[in-house]
């Protein structure tokens, strides 16, 4: 609400200032100076000379300068307040977004490390399976006894189970994709919000110089996409401390299953 009020104030004050500047130029140049054209320096100087020579016009000029000065000060004050509102509403969110983006980096790095560790262990298990198979082949060549072969089979089964578990753990590691997607969706929604606020201020400055087409263009942004982003986003999404957060759940649900309905 405050931002809207400030925006409207700023717009009306800017228009008033422009009108005063226009009036001042007319006063200085008289009616001969063509509008919307840059005044030639000689014409300007002649107008100034005429103004200075006429005490009534000097008084008028001083008065006009004072009015413009007041208007400019008012406009600058409104700008300062607009900037303050923008700063207050966006700085904290932008800083939080920065932290979230850093967390995305550390989450992906940590997930990549976990997966590399898992792959290393999986490769070691495959090496052990190869060694076992090689031992089996050597044993078959030496006509090894049945007891030794049974031990090898048990060991092989154990390693395969371990390998299966390692691969399954790798699959669950991929949850980082969902977590980082939510963090990025949130960051993206914040940036879209900041962009919208900045665009409103830019439109405010443009309003005095264009026919309003730009503001219509600005409103045609992807609002639906933003809504979808926000719906899928969770600012608290994190790979950290999952254990302690689950403990809070268990405390509330009493470690039991509850009942439907």
């Amino acid at each position: 609400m405050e931002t809207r009020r400030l925006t409207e104030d700023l717009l009306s004050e800017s228009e008033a200032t422009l009108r005063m500047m226009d009036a001042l130029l007319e006063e200085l140049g008289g009616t001969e100076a063509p509008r919307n054209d840059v005044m030639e320096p000689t014409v300007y100087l002649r107008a100034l000379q005429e103004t200075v020579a006429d005490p009534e016009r000097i008084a008028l000029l001083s008065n006009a300068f004072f009015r413009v000065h007041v208007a400019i000060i008012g406009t600058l004050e409104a700008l300062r307040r607009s900037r303050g509102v923008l700063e207050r509403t966006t700085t904290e969110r932008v800083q939080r977004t920065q932290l979230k983006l850093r967390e995305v980096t550390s989450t992906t790095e940590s997930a990549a490390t976990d997966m590399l560790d898992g792959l290393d262990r999986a490769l070691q298990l495959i090496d052990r399976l190869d060694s076992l198979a090689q031992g089996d082949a050597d044993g078959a060549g030496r006509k090894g006894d049945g007891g030794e072969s049974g031990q090898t089979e048990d060991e092989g089964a154990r390693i395969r189970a371990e390998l299966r578990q390692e691969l399954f753990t790798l699959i669950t590691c991929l949850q980082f994709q969902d977590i980082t997607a939510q963090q990025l969706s949130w960051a993206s929604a914040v940036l879209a919000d900041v962009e919208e606020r900045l665009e409103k201020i830019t439109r405010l400055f443009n309003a005095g110089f264009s026919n309003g087409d730009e503001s219509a263009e600005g409103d045609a942004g992807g609002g639906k996409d933003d809504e979808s982003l926000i719906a899928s986003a969770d600012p608290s999404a994190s790979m950290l401390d999952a254990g302690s957060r689950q403990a809070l759940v268990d405390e509330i649900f009493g470690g039991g299953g509850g009942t439907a309905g």
Partner: protein
Amino acid sequence: MKFLVVDDSVTMRRIIINSLNRIGYTDCIEAADGAEALDRFDASVDFIITDWNMPTVGGLEMVRRLREREDGGRVRIIMVTTRASRDDIVAAAQAGVNNYVVKPFTPQVLKEKIDQVLAATSRAD
């Protein structure tokens, strides 16, 4: 036992279904958001595993709507989500969720929660 897995992330749906298969539950269907889940749900579904943050209809809203339906009162529901504040967990419990798992989860935690819900609902029956 038939599971309905609801999550807007394809990766998460695959991970959850993979975990369920590992635990021994192989009859799974899936939905990408709450609206699709409400369409796909019928009396043959015994268990729903759902995310919270989803476009169109979120997980919490889906649970509320489901609990109002005649055929949705008894289905077991576990919410699997990144949201973990006390208020969120309480809101989910009040909406009719049977249990709650915080992402990222391990398959062991998911199994534990499914077993707890099954034990509690069979006692209630």
